[in-house]
């Protein structure tokens, strides 16, 4: 495998979102959604959380769903940002990663590429490209949160910067297997929309079927570990998380990518 070719493909993927009309439109929509989140959720909720009258109620409410650690963060903006991002970015990753190879395969563009790079390089390059896009967007939203928080209380800037870095890394790790899953679904379906439909079915019908069979055969529970996001509820409260919680998405990503590589090698282009 040539890392040079992988990097060329990754760079090309970045231009797909940052240098095309369609990509820039998607980025504008993304920015507008986050503008709404910052303006109407984060900015509105922070005074509520900081108000001594509501603090007890908020603590009790957060405690009952395992978020008491988040409530204690002085960087309240990041607490709310974390809860929203934890579910937003995985879903967003599914959409951003929904056309890694399938569009080019249907159009025949992959045929031009496969005469110049191996299928493994194409798959990995495209995956890394999507991952870099998501990581960039996560970093951008973290920076926006940091700015809003520093505007409220500038003394929190340095602690907020470290917290922001930590959350960026954690959110990127959480998003990784979602993109890898879409790599695989792109190979077995015939359009990006169908890939999204398959992902939705996998997370709903698929998990329901496993839960049903696990009722009779408990060890089938293990199959849940193939589902990206399996550990999200464990890490959501930011308390008592273990290294395993952060290794799970890495292992899931590697697993889905290996399956994707095997599937793409066998597939006719």
């Amino acid at each position, binding site marked *: 495998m*040539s890392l*040079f*070719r992988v990097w*060329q*493909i990754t760079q*090309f993927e970045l*231009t*797909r979102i940052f240098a*095309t*009309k*369609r990509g820039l439109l998607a980025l504008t929509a993304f920015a507008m959604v986050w503008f709404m989140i910052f303006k109407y959720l984060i900015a509105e909720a922070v005074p509520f959380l900081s108000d001594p009258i509501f603090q007890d109620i908020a603590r009790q409410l957060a405690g009952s769903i395992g978020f008491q650690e988040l409530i204690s963060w002085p960087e309240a903006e990041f607490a709310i940002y974390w809860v929203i991002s934890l579910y937003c970015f995985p879903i967003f990753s599914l959409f951003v990663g929904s056309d890694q190879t399938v569009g*080019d395969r249907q*159009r*025949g*563009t992959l*045929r*031009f*590429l*496969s*005469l*110049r*790079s*191996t299928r493994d390089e194409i798959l990995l390059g495209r995956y890394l490209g999507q991952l870099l896009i998501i990581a960039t967007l996560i970093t951008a939203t973290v920076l926006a949160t940091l700015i809003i928080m520093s505007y409220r209380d500038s003394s929190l800037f340095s602690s907020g910067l470290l917290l922001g870095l930590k959350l960026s890394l954690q959110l990127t790790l959480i998003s990784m297997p979602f993109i890898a899953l879409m790599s695989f679904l792109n190979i077995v379906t015939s359009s990006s929309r169908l890939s999204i439909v398959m992902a939705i079915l996998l997370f709903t019908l698929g998990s329901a079927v496993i839960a049903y069979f696990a009722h009779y055969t408990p060890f089938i529970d293990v199959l849940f570990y193939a589902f990206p996001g399996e550990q999200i509820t464990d890490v959501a409260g930011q308390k008592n998380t273990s290294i395993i919680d952060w290794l799970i998405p890495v292992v899931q990503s590697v697993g889905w990518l290996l399956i994707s590589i095997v599937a793409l090698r*066998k597939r*006719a*282009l």
Partner: protein
Amino acid sequence: MSSVIKVTNLSKSFGSKAALKDVSFEIEQGKTTALIGPNGAGKTTLFSILCGYLKPDSGQVEVLGYNIGDPKLFSKLSALPQDAQLDPRFSLEKQLNFFGRLQGLSKPNAMNETQRVLELVGLKDNLTARVAELSHGMRKRVCIAQALINKPEIILLDEATAGLDPANAREIRNIISDLSDQATFILSSHDLNELERLCSNILYLEQGVLSEHKTHSYQGEHSYITLQLITKPHQVLDYLKQLQDVTHVQQTQSKEFVIEYKAENKQFDIQLLKYCHKLNWQYRQLINGNTLENELFNKE
């Protein structure tokens, strides 16, 4: 001459339908080869296997001594796959530069190559245009341009001139003809006249079975001349058979005749023209040899 492509006992089926049956052939370096056959004969399947898009059920393919898919072939084998399109959202410059970079060229060299190949196909003024802005014919020419990046040794063109207007088709034929000294071309087309002009080797596929044959294979005991007349005179076949050294005459179209004669008669074409003049026959064309179409479809 060394062979650049060696195919041995290649078979491929789609379900119960056999697309290729035990196909074997070799293509020598520099020998422009035509792949001919009716629709569904297995031409695109064979192309796809040679390019690595499809895996054969059995058999072996060696290109320049390497197996298909070997990274060493990346700058040596290129292709124009049938119906494949470049990404419509990006400019020609962006995509061809990207291909050049993948082939290991430096940024300046990739840019130079992009400009060179676009100039070859007459699109140098469209460097910054997006593929979506181009007409069908222009898109086809860009796809041909990408196959020429970094001067590959083997170029496979599947239906290269299909959908092009006559002037552009002629340009493409000229490019192939000009570059045939530098690369081995393998062409698939339904235009037999085009293939006849460009190719010295024919691979004929029918129902997955390959028969190889050489054009102008009339260099044995007998030679051929194809005569096309403007009108069809009375008893023309009988008159032609009376000519000295004629061994056989076949009517291939209403006013077209393939005349087989003894190869030792080196003056036969002059003799035939004088004969036409004497009988007051007006001819449209006199072809030295048999046409490819007649060789393939009018075998007696």
